[in-house]
């Protein structure tokens, strides 16, 4: 299995699917965060979040399937990579925040948001952006184990 994934064409295909999932996940969260920050005033934030939920969930499912496939194809590569380790740490923080702070901020919101909810949105944008950047940086911090 690992050898099959490491084959030249399989890995970039999985990476592409990972990126599509990432865009669904981060893109939908970003839209809710921007709404929490006051961009757009017409709809309830909770309605927007529930409208986008299929994209968030579908994206999360996609990255959580394709990510471990890439990880499993070359464990030493990833566990020796500082960018990957940082990404996993940030991901734990992001997921924990997403299902607690973020969910609460969205649920308690009407058509406008409190400073606390805005802070949650800013933190969410920063952490998810950092995950994307750290993911991209994995290739820059490759220390090949020969």
């Amino acid at each position, binding site marked *: 299995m690992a050898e099959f994934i490491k084959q030249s064409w399989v890995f*970039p295909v999985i990476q592409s699917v990972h990126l599509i999932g990432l865009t669904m996940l981060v893109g939908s969260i970003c839209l809710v965060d*921007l709404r929490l920050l006051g961009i757009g005033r017409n709809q309830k934030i909770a309605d927007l979040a529930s409208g986008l939920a299929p994209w968030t969930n579908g994206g999360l499912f996609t990255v959580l399937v394709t990510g471990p496939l890439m990880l499993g194809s070359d464990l030493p590569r990833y566990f020796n990579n500082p960018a990957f380790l940082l990404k996993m740490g940030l991901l734990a923080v992001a997921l924990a925040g997403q299902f607690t702070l973020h969910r609460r901020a969205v649920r308690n919101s009407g058509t406008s948001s409190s400073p606390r909810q805005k802070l949650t949105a800013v933190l969410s944008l920063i952490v998810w952006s950092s995950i994307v*950047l750290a993911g991209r940086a994995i290739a820059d911090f490759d220390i090949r184990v020969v």
Partner: protein
Amino acid sequence: MSIPELCERIQDTWVSRTISESTWGYPIVGALHVLAIALFGLAVLIPHIRLHAWDLDTDVRWIRRIGMALVLTTGVLVFASGAARYYESTSFRIKMGLLVLMAVNALASRQHRYKFDSAVAMVLWAAMIFASRGIAFF
């Protein structure tokens, strides 16, 4: 001046050389390009998705415009850093073709067949991601 010559000139400019010859130039610009896609890629598709919960005309328009500006700016910088190589790449050419098709699809979209238009947009969009990754290979 032929197109390959033009590409050579583009990648010889100060901006291009700063990106391609510095240690962190390319990783940073490339990462920002991916970040812009991750944050705003979905927003660009939203008019096609027709969310009930979002007032399309007033709310999303500016997010979409800013998103497109960021993706295109970082994309142009990545291209400029190695214009000749990108121009030679079949996958890059496919990607640019898909970009043109996306623009045509967006301009030609009509209210009464938005489901068809949105399906086309999403397929083109996903194909662009695959073509981007393919640049490293062919």
